[in-house]
């Protein structure tokens, strides 16, 4: 397999998707792909493993992250010594040196929960951002806007430190991790129960799957969509800001699930963007239209 070509296509897909704050950060996603690139990490993350979703398998990513964590800058004298004694080891040392240089750049974490205070007054509002690599090898970000009465930030699972930083209870990360696949309406209720605050907005952005020739597309997906490259960016937004609910995710429509029961006063938008080879734009739109979905297709260049 041409690993460089595969990673290059994923990079181009990410750029074309231009993910916003509801998705994992683009810079971190790009840095993660750099980490996997044999031109940078050599064979330290080998073997190359691609998940059924077409995304880099979690085991491949974890190996690369392990190599990154263990990397240290290699002094020139040590490199020269290795080149003299064993060129293969020298090549690995060069890869470790390149990885050490990448340590400053943020890469996608396997699991990370961050919190920030948004407002403090009559209510205290927090924003939680949970990034996670899923076992299906997709990259998920769950964002939660929580509003609680003044003073709840002093005793609940989300606490505000004097310096303005936020302290999060470990259980929150487990809660969000456990509910990665839970329908978003049910997740909203769980979060309200768990935090004692109101969820004003909840979003879940998923990067992946990545379809390419030879890749299994799943039941109900026309085979012609596998004749090029397609990276998915799916998003669900549940919130007060959503005045008109809309279902524009063809893969969700294909599953034929019953409509979700939503918490009162909250609307739900489900959408899927595609970054695809130019020749696939029209077939993708036709397919989505057939399922009653309006989609956006960004052309891969």
């Amino acid at each position, binding site marked *: 397999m041409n690993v460089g070509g595969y990673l290059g296509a994923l990079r181009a897909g990410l750029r074309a998707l231009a993910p916003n704050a509801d998705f994992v950060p683009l810079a971190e996603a790009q840095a993660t792909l750099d980490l996997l690139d044999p031109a940078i990490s050599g064979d*330290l993350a080998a073997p190359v493993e691609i998940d059924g979703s077409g995304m880099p398998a*979690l*085991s491949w990513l*974890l*190996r690369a*992250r*392990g*190599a990154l*964590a*263990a*990397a*240290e800058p290699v002094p020139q004298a040590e490199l020269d*010594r*290795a080149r003299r*004694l*064993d060129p293969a*080891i020298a090549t*690995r*040392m060069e890869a*470790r040196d390149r990885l050490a240089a990448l340590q400053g750049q943020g890469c996608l974490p*396997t*699991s990370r929960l961050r919190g920030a205070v948004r407002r403090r007054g009559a209510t205290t509002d927090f924003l939680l951002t949970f990034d996670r690599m*899923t*076992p*299906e090898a997709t990259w998920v970000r769950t964002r939660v806007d929580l509003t609680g009465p003044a003073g709840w930030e002093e005793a609940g699972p989300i606490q505000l430190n004097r310096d303005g930083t936020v302290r999060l209870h470990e259980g929150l*990360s*487990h809660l969000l*991790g*456990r*509910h990665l696949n839970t329908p978003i309406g049910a997740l909203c209720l769980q979060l309200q129960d768990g935090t004692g605050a109101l969820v004003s907005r909840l979003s879940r952005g998923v990067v992946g799957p990545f379809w390419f020739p030879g890749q299994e597309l799943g039941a109900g997906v026309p085979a012609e969509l596998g004749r090029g490259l397609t990276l998915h960016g799916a998003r669900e937004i549940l919130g007060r800001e959503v005045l008109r609910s809309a279902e524009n995710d063809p893969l969700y429509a294909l599953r034929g699930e019953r409509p979700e029961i939503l918490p009162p006063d909250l609307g739900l938008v489900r959408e899927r963007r595609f970054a695809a080879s130019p020749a696939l734009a029209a077939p993708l739109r036709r397919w989505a239209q057939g399922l009653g979905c309006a989609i956006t297709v960004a052309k891969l260049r």
Partner: protein
Amino acid sequence: MATKQQRAHLAAKRRIEQEHAAKAPSHADTLAREREILAHHKDAVARVDRLAVQQRQVGDELSRELTGLLAHRETLDAIEQKQRETGFLATLTRRFNARSELLARRSVAEKLLNRYEAVNARLAEAARFVDDLRLSSLELQQEVDRLHTELAEARDAEVQLAARISAIEAELDAITEDPDAAQRIDRLIFEERTATTDLALWTARARIARQGLKPVRGLRDTVLGLHGDVARYVMAARATVQQAGVRIQALGAVADAAVVVSELQSSLDDLQHAVQATETYLRTTQDLYTRVLPELSANLEEHYATQSVSLPHGAAVSREAARDQAEAALVEAAEAELAELLGET
């Protein structure tokens, strides 16, 4: 007036003397080389010492992380035990508890995944360490090769000089009574003394190389042993951990599939073996700290203590002493050749 034949003979002698002068190492060269070998040894012992400490750290850290990974097994066992209960109440409540147990499994998967990442980092460190060991063993092998080359060169020179001294002795015996050979005798005695000094220098050089070989070879073997042990251990641990990783991911994805849980449990069993193997491995390498390294250091110290007597002193030698030295050099060279044939060097 010297005849044509005598002039040619003298010219040949001068050439031989010049060759000897160019080839024989000086006192300063020999001392410098001895110091260089000792410095290399000291560096190598320090390096092996560092590697041994690192090896212990790598083993300890891997063991700790693997044990951490295993710590979640009890939680998983408790969940699965509940699933297997067959009593009336258990059957009745299973339907209601199914979701909470599924979430509990996912919580375990979350913790396992974090641990798994830490284990991967430790394995990457261990792989780097394996490379360090390999480089050190290659470097020590280069030193062994160099010492062998020096030893062979010194032995050749010793044999040539010993042969020359024997030839001079034979000639001196033949002309010693000849009253017209006074100049020739003087020249031969001069040549014999020069050759004897050179022989002593080469003998010292050979001794330095021979003495240097043992500790370097010992270090090389120690590092080779470490390299082999760590490489095998890391390879086995990597395969086990990788297998467990695949199952941990599956646990997060389809936690309600009983088969995944039972596979993961067998992976955790394998990890248990990996932890036990680490402990055994660390115990067996204890010998390195308690015996091998102190022994190597002691050898080196001894070598330091004897270095001042390894060089010849500059006093004039008698013909008898020169003959003995030449004979000893020839005997030593023959013994060394035999030892080499028998694979004892």
